[in-house]
C-alpha cells in the first residue's frame, strides 16, 4: 500500500505509473462519486455500462498524466479533469452503444415519466455533491439515537417498516411513528453543518 502520508498528488502520479495499490486507492475514492455523477445526470442506468465508463475514464485520465498531456498540479484540478473526462467518455461509450440520451422524455426511464422525478430533474449537477453528502452523513449519523441508528441499519438491509414488528428495538413503534422517525433523521442530516476539510 502507498504510504499513509503520501499526498493526493503523489497518489495520482503513482497510479499513473501503474502502481496497483495506488490505482485501487484512487478507484475506492472515486468509483462511487463518478457513479453518482452519471446516475444523477441520468446519462446511463445500466450498472455494467456504468462500470465500463468508470474504467475507461480512469484509464484515460491516467494515460493523459503518463503521456504528459495533463499535469495534476492540484487535487481540485485533477477532480475537475476527472469528472469532465467522465462526461466525455460516457457520451463516447453511449454513442458506440447507441444509447446516448436524447433531450425530452428519453432522459428518463419510461416508468418515471409523469412522476416527480421528471419535475425535479436538473442538468447542473455539481460533482462535489457526493462528497458533500458523504461528509454530512458521516457527521450526522453518530448523533442519532439508538432507535434511529437501528432504523437506518434495517433500511440499509432493505427491511420495510411493515417488517420491523419483530425487531427488539423498533417492534414497539407503529408504521406512522417509523415514518416520522425517518423524517426526523432526514432533518438531522440536512441541518448538519457541512464543513468539508478536504476540499
Amino acid at each position, binding site marked *: 500500500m502507498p504510504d499513509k502520508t503520501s499526498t493526493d498528488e503523489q497518489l495520482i502520479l503513482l497510479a499513473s505509473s*501503474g502502481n496497483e495499490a495506488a490505482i485501487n486507492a484512487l478507484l475506492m475514492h472515486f468509483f462511487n462519486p463518478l457513479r453518482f455523477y452519471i446516475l444523477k445526470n441520468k446519462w446511463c442506468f445500466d450498472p455494467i455500462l456504468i462500470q465500463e465508463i468508470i474504467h475507461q475514464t*480512469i484509464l484515460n485520465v491516467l494515460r493523459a498524466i503518463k503521456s504528459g498531456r495533463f499535469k495534476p498540479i492540484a487535487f481540485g484540478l485533477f477532480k475537475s479533469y476527472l469528472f469532465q473526462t467522465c462526461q466525455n467518455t460516457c457520451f463516447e461509450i453511449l454513442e458506440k452503444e447507441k444509447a446516448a440520451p436524447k433531450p425530452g422524455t428519453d432522459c428518463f426511464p419510461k416508468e418515471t415519466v409523469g412522476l*416527480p422525478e421528471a*419535475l425535479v430533474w436538473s442538468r447542473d449537477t455539481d460533482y462535489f455533491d457526493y462528497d458533500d*453528502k458523504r461528509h454530512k452523513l458521516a457527521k450526522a449519523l453518530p448523533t442519532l439515537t439508538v432507535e434511529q441508528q437501528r432504523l437506518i441499519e434495517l433500511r*440499509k438491509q432493505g427491511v*420495510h417498516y411493515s417488517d420491523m414488528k419483530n425487531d427488539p428495538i423498533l417492534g414497539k413503534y407503529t408504521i*406512522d411513528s417509523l415514518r416520522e422517525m425517518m423524517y426526523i433523521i432526514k*432533518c438531522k442530516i440536512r441541518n448538519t453543518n457541512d464543513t468539508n476539510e478536504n476540499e
Partner: protein
Amino acid sequence: MNNKNDNCAANPTCKKYSIAITSFVMGEDIGMPKEELFEHLKHCKTCQKDLVDWRDTHKVMQMEAEAKTPAFKQNIADMARQIKHEIAPPMPDAISIVKIGNAAGTLWHCLGENGPLPLTALPEVCKLDPPTTKDALVWLLSEKKLDLDEKKRPNIVSLTPEEQNLYFEETGKFGQIEG
C-alpha cells in the same frame, strides 16, 4: 426529545408532504394517495428541493453501505488490476533474439517492397504483431538501417537510401519505388 434540528419543513402544511417524500424515496408506503403528493409537488418548490436532496442523500447512503461490502472491494481490486495491465503491460519473462532478428528481416523486406510507411500501418502491412514490430524497429534503427520522419503524425518509416538500394540489388526489383 425534539429540538430545532428535528423539523425541516418550510411550513406546517409541508411537514406531512415532507414525511411522505421521505417514505416515497425509500420505496415505503407514503401514508397518503400518491396523486395528492404529486399534485403538491407540482406547485411547491420547497418540497421539490426536499425530494432532490433526500433522494441524493439516500442514494449516497446506499452507495456508502455498498462500498463496505467484500464484493464491492473485490470488484474494485479486479478493476485496478486490469487498469494496471492496460497502463503498464507486464514485461515478458523471456525474449527470443532469433524471433526479433527474423522480424527485423521481415520488416526490412516489407519496407523495401512497399517504400515509406506510416508507423501505425507497419503491423498490418508487414503481418507482424505490434510488440514484435516495435522490437524489430528498434533493432533496425539501432543498426541505422531506417529513416524516421518524426515531423509527421503518425511518423513515417522508410529504409535509408543505401538500404533501399541494397534491397533492389538483392531482389533485382528496380525502379518500382520513386524518389
